[in-house]
């Protein structure tokens, strides 16, 4: 597995923010809310969720919209939206450095930013990406160079309680056997990611902060 690193409370003006990196991919997520909502987006029974992904260069295009929708559907399942009717929660993600793992890095950054902001959730969630090489081996958290060589790429998002799949995103072709093999491998990797979350949160709330 690639090295994970995270810094919480990264931005002073957001309610919660996290800088998250997997390998050389770095994403910054910030969460604002629950707060004031536009009239057109106001729901009587739940909080309105908005996810905005901005790439480091140029305007956001169809690829970014796909990422946004995957993240939005994941976050919607987890956040207790019914607790905050007639409000909006904004999640903004900025790509800082790209090395192929944009989706899993942004999902993980979003989760930690939500935890940092103290938004009520059913459980945390962790995303893991894997790819299938032409020789049939599965690589967890590949680099961009490895992705170019690979046949298919799959990203799974798991919840923190029973490691159920919250969302799955796939590029390329996978037969059912390979798909389940990928799923199982990602599931075991997700446990490590969730342990990493726990360590980060414990660090945040521990009394002796070892800031250098």
């Amino acid at each position, binding site marked *: 597995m690639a*090295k994970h*690193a995270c*810094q*919480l*409370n*990264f*931005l*002073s*003006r*957001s309610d919660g*923010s996290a*800088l998250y*990196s997997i390998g*050389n991919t*770095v994403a*910054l997520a*910030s969460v*604002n*809310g629950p*707060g*004031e*909502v536009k009239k057109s987006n106001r729901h009587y029974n739940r909080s309105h969720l908005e996810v*905005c992904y*901005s790439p*480091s*260069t*140029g*305007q956001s295009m169809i690829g970014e919209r796909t990422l946004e929708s995957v993240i939005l559907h994941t976050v919607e399942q987890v956040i207790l939206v019914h607790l905050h009717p007639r409000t*909006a929660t*904004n999640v*903004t993600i*900025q790509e*800082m*450095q790209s*090395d192929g793992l944009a989706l899993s890095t942004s999902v993980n950054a979003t989760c930690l930013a939500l935890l940092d902001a103290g938004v009520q959730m059913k459980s945390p969630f962790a995303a893991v990406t894997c790819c299938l090489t032409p020789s049939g081996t599965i690589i967890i958290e590949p680099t961009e160079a490895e992705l170019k060589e690979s046949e298919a790429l799959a990203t799974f998002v798991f919840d923190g309680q029973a490691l159920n799949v919250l969302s799955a995103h796939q590029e390329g072709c996978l037969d059912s056997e390979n798909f389940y093999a990928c799923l199982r491998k990602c599931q075991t990797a997700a446990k490590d990611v969730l342990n990493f979350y726990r360590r980060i949160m414990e660090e945040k709330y521990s009394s002796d*902060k070892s*800031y250098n």
Partner: protein
Amino acid sequence: MKEVPLSTCERTSIVSALQAGLRYDNREFLEVRDITLTFGKDYGCCTATIGQTRVIAQVTCEVVEPRPSRPNEGKLSVAVHLSPMAAPHFEPGRGNDLVDELQLILDRNIKESRCLDLESLCIMADESVWHLRVDVTVLNHAGNLGDACNIASVAALRHFHRPDVTVEEDGRVTVHTLEEREPIPTFMKKVPVCLTYAFFIVDDYCYMLMDPSEKEERVMSGKLIVGLNPHGEITSLVFPGRVSLQKEQIVSCIRNAFSKAKSSAEMVQKAVDEDIEKRKSLIKPEGFINCLASDARYARQRIMRKIKTTSKTEFKIPQEPVEDLQESMDEIQIKFDPFDSDEVTTPMKVKQHTAKKVKVSKPREVASESEEEEEEGKLTSQDLQ
């Protein structure tokens, strides 16, 4: 989400602190916050922080056809993006006054100052040239975005290396990847520097601050953003807000800016050169992972530094027992009884005070004034040269 309004209390508190010669973050009037520059994994990616203001700039390049009027010059464009990440009241993809102002500053400072040798970006005249595009994204808005955007984009441009190209005999252009051939650095003749001065008019007296924080920006009467380079050239003067100044005041601002421009430009150059030097060694650049420090950490470091420097003056921690505190709390509650006749008069006084201040600032038409002052600025620039 709407912007949280600044209360009258906060406004008067900032102004009265200035009158006492103090700023909220314990700076001198002409003191700039700490500036850090961090470079990413790729060439031309840079984040700049001024205090808690944080900006990321990314340079990308592509081969395009040149303009027919300038067949042997490359193209350079700068784009500023503000997302809700910078501050909750910004809306994604929609422009506002702040974006327009930043765009104007960057266009004048970087594009129109011709600090970059555009002719060196030519591959084949009339056929193909390089188009450099700088994307500046604001991550955290804590005041003085103009300076931050300028530093980030200048550092990113200086740091950028474009891929090497070969032109075949039949006119085909081959772009080599970074692995195939050593990339070529961009050649920047002059380093543009941008410095912001904020003005507060209180009782016909003008207070001048450098590098205003976000709260100061919301209270100030106006600001002057000077774009210049250490070679003695003024590249831009932007003067928004409702304040009119004497020519001498603007000249003194510009003098002050010139005295600081050299150190600022050298700082940028040094940071870029150090990073490029590091890349020549065998260790691969890691990028942002371990070198970006969060705003919380920055604030903590500032406090720690402050405690170290002022360790002689001991901090007195009140040792009163909790019961006493409770009693004093009760007293406070009695004091703020709305039927108490003494207390009703005090808020009235504050109101009168603020009403006076609004009269002093004399709002006039903003556009005409700024043009006037820019003309004056141009005069002075010639004088100085």
